C-alpha cells in the first residue's frame, strides 16, 4: 500500500505531538523539578514531587532548595551555617539558597563548605571554614 509523503509527514507530527498532548492531559508532562532515584515516582500532577535532600552528596543541592532543608539533611544547625557565611541570624529556614546569594554565599560555596565540614568531622582536629 502506498503512502503519500504529505500523509507521512502529518503522521510523524501527529504521533509525536499527540503523545505529548495525551501526556499533558493525563498530568504526566512534568518539565520542572525532579524526582530523585529511589524516592518514588512523581505523583503525576503538573508540579510533580521535588527531590528530597539525602545528605549523601553535595551535588544534589540546587539553588531552589531551602537552606533549612540543607541544615536538616546534613544535620548541621542552621545557626552554624548562617554564621559561617555571615548571613542574618533570623533568616527563615524556608529561604531558597539562590535568594541568599552574595559575595560570600553561593550554592557552590555551600557545597564546598559542606564537603570541608564533612572532612573535618571525619578527622579528630580542625574546624570547617567558608
Amino acid at each position, binding site marked *: *500500500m*502506498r*503512502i*503519500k*509523503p*504529505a500523509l*507521512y*509527514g502529518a*503522521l*510523524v*507530527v501527529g*504521533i*509525536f505531538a499527540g*503523545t*505529548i498532548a495525551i*501526556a499533558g492531559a493525563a498530568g*504526566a*508532562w*512534568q*518539565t*520542572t*523539578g*525532579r*524526582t*530523585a*532515584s*529511589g*524516592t*518514588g*515516582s*512523581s505523583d*503525576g500532577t503538573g*508540579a*510533580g*514531587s*521535588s527531590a528530597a535532600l539525602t545528605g549523601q552528596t553535595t551535588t*544534589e543541592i*540546587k*539553588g*531552589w*532548595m531551602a537552606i533549612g532543608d540543607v541544615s536538616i539533611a546534613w544535620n548541621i544547625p542552621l545557626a552554624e551555617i548562617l554564621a559561617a557565611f555571615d548571613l542574618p541570624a533570623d533568616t527563615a529556614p524556608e529561604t*531558597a539558597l*539562590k535568594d541568599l546569594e552574595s559575595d560570600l554565599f553561593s550554592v557552590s560555596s555551600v557545597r564546598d563548605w559542606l564537603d570541608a565540614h564533612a572532612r573535618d568531622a571525619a578527622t579528630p582536629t580542625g574546624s570547617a571554614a567558608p
Partner: protein
Amino acid sequence: MTTLATPRPRGTFGAIRRPRRGLRSLRGIQGMRRATQAAVALAILAIALARTFSTTGGGPAGATTPEALCPFGGIETIGTFIATGGYVPHVHAANLVLAVALLLVAFFARGAFCGWICPLGFLQDLTSGFGRIVKKRVPPVRRAVRALQIRARGLARLDRPLRLLKYAVLAWAVLGAAYFGLMVFRDVDPWIALLDLGRESAGFGLLVLGILLVASFFVDRPWCRYACPLGAANGIVARLSPVFLRRDVAACVDCTACSRACPMGLPVATALKITSVDCTGCLECVEACPREGALELAVGMPISFGRAAH
C-alpha cells in the same frame, strides 16, 4: 525499464518530474519537513533563553529546563524507572514521555524523528547546507575540499564499521545510567553542551559539538551516522516498522540521484526496499527522483528481508 525516450503524462507513473533546486526545493514535502524542524528548534531555543534569563530559577515552580525536552533522557532513565520508579538526575517525566513518542514514531514512521524533529539533526543540516553554499560560491574552498576528499577516499571503507559505534555509545549511556544512577553520557553530549552555552562550562561535550559541526561541513549528518545513541535506539525499533521506501525498477532510470541526495549515504539506487536503520525518513531521495512512482513510501511486512539498503 522505462527510458527517457518514452515520455508519460505529468503526474502518472513513470512521468518525468523536474527536480526542484534552491529555495524551490522547500515547496511541498521538504518545506513541511523543514518547517517542522525549525519550529521544534525555535521552541527549544525559546525555552533555553527563558531558562537562562529566568528569575524564578529551577525546581518545581521554576522555568522549564530544556533538558526536559530530550527523549534520550527518558531512554537513559528506563532502567532506573523500572527498578525504582524514579529517575536519574536531570531527568523529568517529560523525558520519558518524549522517549515513548520517539519510539512510536520509530515504529509507525521509521527514522522520521531524526529527519523531521531532532534539532541537532537540523543543526547539522544547516551546517551542511552552509558548507554546500560556500563550496559552490568559493572555488578555492571547493578545490581544497575536493582534494581532501580524494586523499581521504580510502577512509570510505571505515563507513560501515563506524556506523556500529553509535550502538556502543547507546549501551554505555543506558547501562552506565542504570549502574551508576546518573547520566554518564551527559558530559560528552553535544546537545547538552549546546543547551549550556552561555550558562556554565559544557566540558568535553563542547569539543564533541565543535567536531561534529566541522565534520558537517564535509559529511552530511556525521553525528547521526556514527555516534548518536538516540538514533541507535530509534533504529532498533525502526527495524520493526511496516513503513519503508520502495524502488520500482520499472520506473527507475538508474540515474542514482536518490543515492546522491541521501544525507545518510544510503545506496538507495541499488535497493528494492529501503529498510536501513539509518534511514531518517527525510524523503530527500523521493524529492530528487526524476521519475514519478520510481521511489515511494509503502506499507508492508515489518523486518523486511531481501535486497535492502543498509
